[in-house]
């Protein structure tokens, strides 16, 4: 690591509350160490705002290591910023140049209303999971773990899908604000595993119906979701969802 500092101009979405109007405010962010993460840059700016008697910028974050899915805003038009497969908390300032202007906004999607500044309500994602993103097993009912072998390639694919952190970047990236990548990742994880098969049809129908009901748009194959996903979730999951859904709609009695 070799630390330098850079000066940036920030244009940050400020919105005092969910019902209030918001606008972009300009801040000068000078002397930002290039080894700092993007969120540490915001910390520095917030310290300065606080000491100047102003309200700091509200933004969501927790783990700061790319796994909790809590961070995520749109940076220069891209959810989680410019680096591929990198959450905002893992993005470091060395990827910016001295003098850059950086525009920071919340996701723009009907299903994700703004709460304050960059903080959004993403509870719609929990609702999709509630609709069927689980295997119905109560504690105590399980069989011995190795009594159910799972082919390694299937287990690996299930893990690829399960790596989703639920940040919602896919929805922010999609011109239709579709939640297909998120939903398909969960459906795929379970569809690939023998444990998930008994409820596969019911799950696909219920989760898709819930997603449609929450105001997310349709998938029209723009593939932007895959591009922006910080965990590299593949759109092949969407194809799998579609297969599961069609199969379910055709043969299932649970319509």
């Amino acid at each position: 690591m070799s630390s330098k500092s850079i000066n940036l101009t920030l244009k940050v979405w400020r919105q005092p509350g969910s019902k209030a109007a918001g606008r972009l405010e300009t801040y000068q962010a000078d002397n930002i160490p290039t080894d700092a993460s993007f969120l540490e840059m915001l910390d520095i700016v917030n310290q300065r705002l606080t000491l100047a008697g102003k309200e700091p910028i509200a933004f969501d974050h927790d783990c700061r290591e790319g796994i909790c899915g809590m961070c995520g805003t749109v940076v220069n038009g891209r959810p989680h910023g410019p680096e591929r497969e990198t959450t905002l908390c893992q993005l470091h300032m060395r990827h910016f140049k001295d003098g850059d202007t950086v525009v920071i906004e919340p996701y723009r999607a009907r299903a994700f209303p703004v709460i304050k500044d960059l903080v959004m309500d993403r509870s719609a994602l929990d609702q999709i999971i509630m609709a069927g993103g689980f295997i119905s097993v109560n504690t105590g009912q399980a069989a011995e773990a190795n009594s159910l072998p799972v082919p390694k390639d299937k287990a690996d694919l299930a893990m690829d899908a399960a790596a989703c952190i639920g940040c919602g970047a896919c929805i922010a990236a999609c011109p239709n604000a579709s939640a297909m990548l998120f939903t398909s990742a969960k459906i795929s994880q379970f569809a690939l595993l023998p444990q998930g098969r008994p409820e596969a049809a019911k799950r696909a129908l219920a989760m898709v119906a819930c997603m449609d009901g929450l105001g997310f748009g349709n998938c029209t194959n723009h593939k932007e979701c895959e591009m922006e996903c910080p965990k590299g979730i593949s759109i092949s999951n969407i194809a799998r969802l579609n297969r599961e859904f069609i199969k379910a709609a055709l043969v299932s009695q649970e319509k």
Partner: protein
Amino acid sequence: MQLDAKIPAGPLETKWEKNCFDLKLVNPANKRKFEIIVVGTGLAGGSASASLAELGYNVKTFCIQDSPRRAHSIAAQGGINAAKNYPNDGDSVWRLFYDTIKGGDFRSREANVYRLAQVSNLIIDHCVAQGIPFAREYGGLLGNRSFGGAQVSRTFYARGQTGQQLLLGAYSSLMRQVARGQVTMFPRREMLDLVLVDGQARGIVVRNLITGEIERHTAHAVVLATGGYANVFYLSTNGMGCNVTAAFRAYKKGAGFANPCFTQIHPTCIPVHGDYQSKLTLMSESLRNDGRVWVPKQTGDTRRPEEIPEDERDYYLERIYPSFGNLAPRDISSRAAKRMCDEGKGVGPTGRAVYLDFAEAIQRLGQPEIAARYGNLFQMYEKIVAENPYKTPMMIYPASHYAMGGLWVDYNLMSTIPGLFVLGEANFSDHGANRLGASALMQGLADGYFVIPNTINGYLAGSRFAEVTDRHPAFKESVAEVVAKVKRLLSIKGKRTVQDFHRDLGNIMWEYCGMGRTDERLTKARKLVADVKAEFWENVTVPGSRADLNQSLENAGRVADFLEFADILLLDALARRESCGCHFNEAFQTADHEALRDDVNMSHVAVWEYAGEDKEPIFNKEPLVYEFVKLATRSYK
């Protein structure tokens, strides 16, 4: 303070079964009449909420984050232990029990740890049934890896994202119960007080983090699963929101706080590099399966690692601890790294780092295999440090990571307050003075899936409950206190930020109460912390209002509690007249710098009791009785 651990009599192997049989049951129809509050949705709280709801209890679950899926358990990387003995390498319930007791330097309860080992296998069964994509071998069966402090391979894992996958499993079970109406979920709420009526825990007061409203919630029992307090060191591997607040407020209402000075420093983290830094990132212990730790033999050697020939490197863990080598337990590995750096052999720009080198493993197994095992960790390292660890050895240094200490609980996980149960990292129960890798996930899930559903009924069926609504005077009083504190924080309008104070506190704790402690330095730290605390209440500035989302205010409350709690941690460190596990008082060490226990005088749990504002807490102890294992000097040589 009464400290009855309620350990069932009889042989170790049958204690748990006997306990479950002896506790009263609640019949299914009556379960509907009980409300249980669960605070926290990590592995412990998530699994407890789901399992209690499956039994038919009405559950109200709270968390700070916007979704229960984001609790800090999500960040656990390496794996979860169980005594399946799939590799046929000599493992057993007894060995897992023994390794954990020994790993904790003989400062935990035999009965609790044995139960943990017993239910460990059920956890794996349940998690597989939930669809958790654990790593598998080509034959489709589950794979294992090794972790520190064990000579068997008993760790189950899902790439470097085991905590994420286990948490998403618990979360999906929880959401299933939310959909059924059996759990009501309250995200973005912070518990700010515990409410007692007739001496029983009957509810909590929380702040709605979006509207700022102070809410009251009643219940017949309260389960705290609010995680650990490693952030008392400011920089730690924990998430930014991890706090001691919920546990500390319960302590102030009469819950004993056990062994607060048992704080784990993890040996393999990315070193500190700047004062703007907000957290330290863990590089999972699983890396020590294949990575070799070394420093240059010569002090002050500034050559690049690849320029240092093999015979000028000191693979000090392999040298000092030949039988465990790079898999020596955390406390021992951390201290060894510190010693190397203190001797001037540290590397990197600050001299506070050692190498973790994969060259030999890459040669042996090939880069693709290393990538398959640790790809996400290598990627994480590269993002932060901007160096490629496939080519250049990683630089690592110890960092604050985990709290073995926590609220005191009996065998049924009930605190000293009737009706207040504590699970997961928030309690003190199973790890003694040092936790072994991959055993926190095991404990959190054991507590939530298997222990609490079988012990809470004993309390509910065996107690009488007054009719309590949220209009009860106890709630009113508690709300008034909470509001007064919030107002006070906002009214100071001083000149320093909350983060600034937190950083000061962390620096003191790390410098004076970190890997090497002395009476003199601990005493000095008490004074320094008291000064920071005093200044905080005069000079902190908390912008914004209390009537909406205000992250500075949230943080201010947490830091205020850390400042108060830190003194108890320091007191506890002073009171422990020995070195054991993570607690290393330099006055108590062997000739070769290992921890020197005092089993005659110090074989106890230290439990601190709140005595009032600005009064020293009262010291109590629960003696540890070893009936089944022989206390031995812990050796990994």
